[in-house]
Structures are given as structure tokens and as C-alpha cells.
């Protein structure tokens, strides 16, 4: 029975459940599954919202200075008089697109939604270790989202200094920046609450026999992600407090002396350092980008193992690579700052760490590619997205290399090449992995499968259109076109050669929206009308499939506490009939014996 059906019938045979009032079960719920769904739904709404902002911007980029049709008039005279987008509004949209996509859409979806829903199930836990904290984490995130959203309506509009909010620009910016900072403090707090919860849950609530090396790769990816959130986010919280004080109390932590803005000498004590912000920001934001990609890699690994019907190739090296990746991500941040006036030694250090960190990504990707060898590939909808992820992440990751070498970064820094680089990793990369995850775990959440035809109708056009948007960016970037240009570079001679791409890319973006319609329809339609399935429709091995389809709300996911007997992906085991052996399947195989006590593990982790 699906969550939503339960909501309707309001009945649940399990003792005591019906006593909980509606708001306690579905609004201020402490159940990881409900919280996961809350996160997921909110994040999807923000994903759509962040996308819509970009659709507006893409109009301006395609047809600079032309009135936006239909919607243009609704944007308000302060933003788009006569439907023509003002540069300051463009900057707001850009800054908020970045912020919303990263902090309000992808992270909550990848960690909040998938992590919350799937991790406890995959480790055979009754719930997260701290259910109340879990609830708090969602609601603090929600507050952060509301703050960010509301900032569009304050005088001067939302933050407009880029998602990076570099001072002094952000310090002299309109009020929206203050809202942005407050929102960020909420979001960071939410992530901290969540990450503590994830780490304790994964270390402490694993089912009997589920040793660390038997964890599904998805759980590993969430564990490393949680450590990144835990240790990398606080510095931005500190920086946020400083910037807030600069803006509200007139301190000058990030304001050097002797600034002259619009002909007026700025009256502050001075002596601050704009670069301090950049250090603190990128100390967070580089690990943050791995927060965006690790859960995606986890999902892709799950889907690939399941749809190749064989164990992941090089599971161990993938785990070590992920841990190493997490560790290294703390010491590469200044590769975003090569052009702030860096000396040779420091630049050599950060170039080297950047090249080092590309290796674990290569290892993980290679392992996933090698997993395909000897497989029996089922091209299900989640698998299509997972497969597409590989070359797309490949393009994004590979284009990170010239950026990581400071010499080639001189020409490419702050151009569309960078935009192309990271969108390949986050859009056809992470977003595709998110789609794979949604199609894959939908039957677990609702007890029904999403429609396969509509899924394919979603996949193929999306794949084409998303490449239409991002591929030309590399060409524009090589030509040297700066990012964050209101007119897409129209005034610059060096941009002329690639200018015609702007319209092409915008069409890609608008068509991409159209390509999402089958998905949105499918998502809601399948809740009610999708094909009913049993608890393990994909014939998967991991523990979440041992729980009932659409596990009932309330702590306690499994009818019986599961015991684990084997590694995560025992597909196509030789001499075993059927092509998979679930982790909790007690069948004796020559190689595996049950482990009676929880393994000896340490908290050590990178």
C-alpha cells in the first residue's frame, strides 16, 4: 500500500499507529521515509524552480534585450520593464539559479531524499539514529528554502552577486544578499544535523552481518558525503556570519581600506581581506561539488549492478576511491582561485592535489565501465539514465583537467568553459543519476512501477536536449567568452564567432523542459495507476528490497530484523539457480557463511 493511499484511507492495521494524528505522521513526521519523501518533493519543486529561472535567463541570452514573451510582463517593472530583463535582474536569476540548484535542489534530493529513504532500508535499520533531529533537519532546510524564495520579493530583489557571493560586491549589494546569508545559515545548519544523523546511523544501525565491506556502494557514498557536509560546511557558516556582520553591523572583515564605489569613498574601518571569503567559501564549495556527485555515483552503481546482473567490478577499489576522494576534496579548494595572484609554490601544490583528486574519479568510473563487461544488460528506464551518466560525467570530469592546470586555466577561468564543465557533471551527470534513482526506487516507495514507455519518452529527448545546451559552451569558453554576461557576449568581438550558439542552446533548454513533461506526468500518474509490483520488482539483492513494498510509516521497516549473509551484489552466482542472491538470503553458498556478531569496525573514515 502506498504512502499516499495510506494517507487517504487513514488506516493501518499495525497497533497504535492510528493514534498518531495526521500532522504528526505526515507533516512533522519523524519517520525517515516520510522525511525522505518530504525532502524529495520539496527538492523537486526547487529543481523545477531553479530550472525556470534559467529558462528566463536563456531567453535573454538568446535574444538580448528583447521582451520576454508572455511571462515578461509578469516579472514586474523593477525586474523587466516592458518585459525586457534588466542586467541586475539577470544577475539575481544567475545567483539564485546556482544557489537553488546546489543547496536547495540537488543536495536535498541526493542526500535528504535518497539518503533518508534508502540508507536505513539498505542497512536494515528501523529508522535513522535520531528521528527528531532528522525532522528538525528537514524543517530547517524548509526555512532556508522559504528565506531564499522570499528574497525575490524584498526591495532590490534577491542576491545578485553570483552563488559565490564574492565581497566586496556582495557587501555593497542590495538587501537580498542579507536574506541569502540568513538562508545559507539555515541550509548549512540543516546539513550538519543531517550529516551527524547519517554517520551515526551508518556506523551503528547496520543489520547483523552487514560489515562495512558488504555495504551497498550507495551507503558508502552517503557516508563519505556526510563527512564532507560535517567538516566542510562550518567554515562557510563562519564566513556567512562575518559577511552578515559586515552588511548589518558595518564591520569590514572582507572590506579593504580605501574603496571608492561610484565615486564615493566607502566609509568603513577597512583592513579586511576579500580573499579570506574566497578561501572560506571554496573550502566549503569544493567538497560541496563532491557532495553533488558522490550520491549520484552511488545511485548509478546500484542501478548498474542490478541491471547488469553481476557484481560491481572492483567494489573495494571503488570504496577506497570514494573515501580517498572525500579526504582529498579538503585540500584542492584553491584551484578556484588560481588567478587571484598566486605564487608558484602554492599553485603547484593545488594543481598537484587537483590532479591527484581526479584519479579516484577515474577509478570509480573505470570500475563502473568495467562492470559492464560480461553483463546481461537490461535496458530499463533507470538503467538508461545510469548508463547515460557515465559518458556525461566523463565529459564533465575530463574538462575539469584543463581547469585544474593553472596555466590552461588562465585562458579558461571564468569563461563558459567552466560553466560547461560543471554542468556536465551536475546536469546530465547528477540530475540523470537522480532520475535513475527515482525510477529505480519508485516501486519501493509506492508499491508501483513508473510507466516504462513514458520513461523512455523522458530519457531520449532529455539526453539530446541537455547536450544541445551544454556542448556549445565549451566552444564559447575556448573563444574566451566570460560567464555571467547579461547579453551573452554580444558586445565582444571575440565572442562573435560563437554567438549564434546562444539561441541554439536556449532552444535546447526550452525543449528540455518539454522533455520533462512525460516525467512529471508519469510521476503523479504512477502513484495511482502504475503497475502494482511485489516487494522486489527488480530482483535486486540489497536489503531495501527485503522490506515490504511501500514500507509502512512509523519506526520499524522490516517485518523481521534482517540478517546479512553476503556482499551487496551477489548476482549470477555460479552454481546457483536464479540470477541473484539477496543479502539476507540464508542459502548457503560455498563462499559465504553468516557472521554472527557485528564486525569489528572503527570510526575511521575520510
Amino acid at each position, binding site marked *: 500500500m502506498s504512502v499516499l493511499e495510506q494517507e487517504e484511507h487513514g488506516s493501518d492495521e499495525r497497533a497504535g499507529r492510528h493514534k498518531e494524528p495526521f500532522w504528526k505522521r505526515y507533516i512533522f513526521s519523524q519517520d525517515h521515509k516520510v522525511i525522505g519523501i518530504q525532502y524529495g518533493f520539496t527538492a523537486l519543486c526547487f529543481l523545477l524552480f531553479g530550472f525556470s529561472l534559467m529558462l528566463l535567463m536563456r531567453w535573454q541570452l538568446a535574444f538580448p534585450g528583447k521582451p520576454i514573451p508572455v511571462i515578461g510582463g509578469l516579472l514586474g517593472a523593477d525586474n523587466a520593464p516592458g518585459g525586457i530583463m534588466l542586467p541586475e535582474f539577470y544577475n539575481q536569476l544567475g545567483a539564485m539559479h546556482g544557489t537553488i540548484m546546489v543547496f536547495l535542489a540537488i543536495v536535498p534530493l541526493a542526500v535528504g531524499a535518497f539518503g533518508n529513504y534508502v540508507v536505513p532500508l539498505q542497512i536494515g535499520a528501523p529508522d535513522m539514529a535520531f528521528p527528531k533531529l532528522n525532522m528538525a533537519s528537514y524543517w530547517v532546510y524548509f526555512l532556508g528554502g522559504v528565506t531564499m524564495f522570499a528574497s525575490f520579493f524584498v526591495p532590490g530583489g534577491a542576491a545578485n552577486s553570483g552563488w559565490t557571493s564574492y565581497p566586496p560586491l556582495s557587501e555593497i549589494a542590495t538587501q537580498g544578499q542579507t536574506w541569502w546569508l540568513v538562508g545559507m545559515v539555515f541550509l548549512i545548519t540543516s546539513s550538519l544535523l543531517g550529516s551527524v544523523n547519517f554517520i551515526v546511523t551508518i556506523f551503528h544501525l547496520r543489520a547483523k552481518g552487514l560489515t562495512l565491506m558488504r555495504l551497498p556502494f550507495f551507503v558508502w557514498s552517503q557516508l563519505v558525503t556526510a563527512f564532507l557536509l560535517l567538516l566542510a560546511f562550518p567554515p562557510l557558516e563562519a564566513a556567512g556570519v562575518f559577511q552578515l556582520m559586515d552588511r548589518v553591523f558595518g564591520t569590514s572583515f572582507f572590506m579593504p581600506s580605501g574603496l571608492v564605489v561610484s565615486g564615493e569613498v566607502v566609509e568603513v574601518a577597512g583592513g579586511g581581506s576579500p580573499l579570506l571569503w574566497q578561501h572560506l567559501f571554496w573550502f566549503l564549495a569544493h567538497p560541496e561539488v563532491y557532495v553533488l556527485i558522490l550520491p549520484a555515483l552511488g545511485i548509478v552503481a546500484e542501478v548498474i549492478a542490478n541491471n547488469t546482473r553481476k557484481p560491481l567490478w572492483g567494489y573495494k577499489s571503488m570504496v577506497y576511491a570514494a573515501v580517498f576522494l572525500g579526504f582529498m576534496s579538503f*585540500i584542492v579548494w584553491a584551484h578556484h582561485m588560481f588567478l587571484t595572484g598566486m605564487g608558484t609554490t602554492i599553485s603547484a601544490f593545488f594543481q598537484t592535489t587537483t590532479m591527484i583528486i581526479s584519479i579516484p574519479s577515474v577509478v570509480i568510473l573505470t570500475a563502473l565501465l568495467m562492470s559492464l563487461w560480461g553483463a546481461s544488460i537490461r535496458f530499463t528506464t533507470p538503467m538508461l539514465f545510469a548508463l547515460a551518466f557515465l559518458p556525461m560525467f566523463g565529459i564533465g570530469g575530463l574538462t575539469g583537467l584543463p581547469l585544474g592546470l593553472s596555466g590552461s586555466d588562465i585562458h579558461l577561468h571564468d569563461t563558459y568553459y567552466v560553466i560547461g564543465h560543471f554542468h556536465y557533471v551536475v546536469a546530465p551527470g547528477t540530475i540523470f543519476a537522480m532520475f535513475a534513482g527515482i525510477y529505480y526506487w519508485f516501486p519501493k516507495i509506492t508499491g508501483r512501477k513508473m510507466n516504462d514507455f513514458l520513461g523512455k519518452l523522458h530519457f531520449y529527448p532529455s539526453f539530446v536536449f541537455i547536450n544541445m545546451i551544454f556542448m556549445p559552451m565549451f566552444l564559447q569558453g575556448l573563444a574566451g567568452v566570460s560567464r555571467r554576461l547579461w547579453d551573452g557576449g554580444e558586445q565582444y568581438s571575440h565572442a562573435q564567432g560563437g554567438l549564434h550558439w546562444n539561441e541554439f542552446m536556449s532552444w535546447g533548454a526550452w525543449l528540455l523542459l518539454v522533455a520533462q513533461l512525460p516525467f512529471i506526468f508519469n510521476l503523479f500518474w504512477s502513484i495511482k495507476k502504475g503497475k502494482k509490483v511485489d516487494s522486489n520488482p527488480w530482483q535486486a539483492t540489497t536489503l531495501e528490497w527485503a522490506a515490504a513494498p511501500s514500507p509502512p510509516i512509523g519506526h520499524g521497516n522490516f517485518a523481521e530484523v534482517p540478517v546479512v549473509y553476503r556482499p551487496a551484489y551477489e548476482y549470477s552466482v555460479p552454481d546457483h539457480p536464479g540470477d541473484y542472491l539477496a543479502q539476507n538470503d540464508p542459502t548457503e553458498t560455498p563462499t559465504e557463511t553468516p557472521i554472527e556478531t557485528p564486525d569489528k569496525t*572503527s570510526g575511521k573514515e575520510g
Partner: protein
Amino acid sequence: MSGHTVEEIRSEMRRYWVVGTALFLLTVITVAVSYLDVSQGVAIAIALVIACLKGGLVAAVFMHLISEKQAIYSLLLLTVLFFIVLMLGPMGGRLGSTALG
């Protein structure tokens, strides 16, 4: 873990008072030293050494880190590592910088 028997707990409690007193004395020393006329570098060194000593006592005894588990040591080791990176990184960025002023 700390002791369980009544005797053990009582001796722990005595230890808390001893450490409390030590912290008190160290605080007095810090303040006293700050009135001495030593160079800035020496003053910073002394103050930080004493602060580390005090911090160490609090962590080791009050937070009973001395008898803590491997998991926590590993976690703290990792944190301390990143803490150091965080202290040095921004400074390092400037040391190598070509900027004037």
C-alpha cells in the same frame, strides 16, 4: 569508558577537582605572564602553550578522552588534520602571492 564501581567514580570525582584547581592556577599564570614585559612572539607562544595545556586537560579528563574509543580518536584525528589545513591554507595562499600590499 570511565569506571563503574562506586570507588572508581569517587576517585574520578576527586580527580575532577584536582583538574579544576589546575585549570584555575594555569589561568592565573596566563594572566600574570601577560603583564610581564616579553616580546610579542614569546607572549603568544606562552599563552598558546598554556591554553593548549588547559584545553588538553579539559578534553582528556572532563571529556574523558583519555579513556575514549578508537572511533572517536580517528574522528578527531581527521578533524584536527582538516583544522590545520584550514589554519594554514588561507595563510599559505598569501605567502606565495605575488600581490604587493
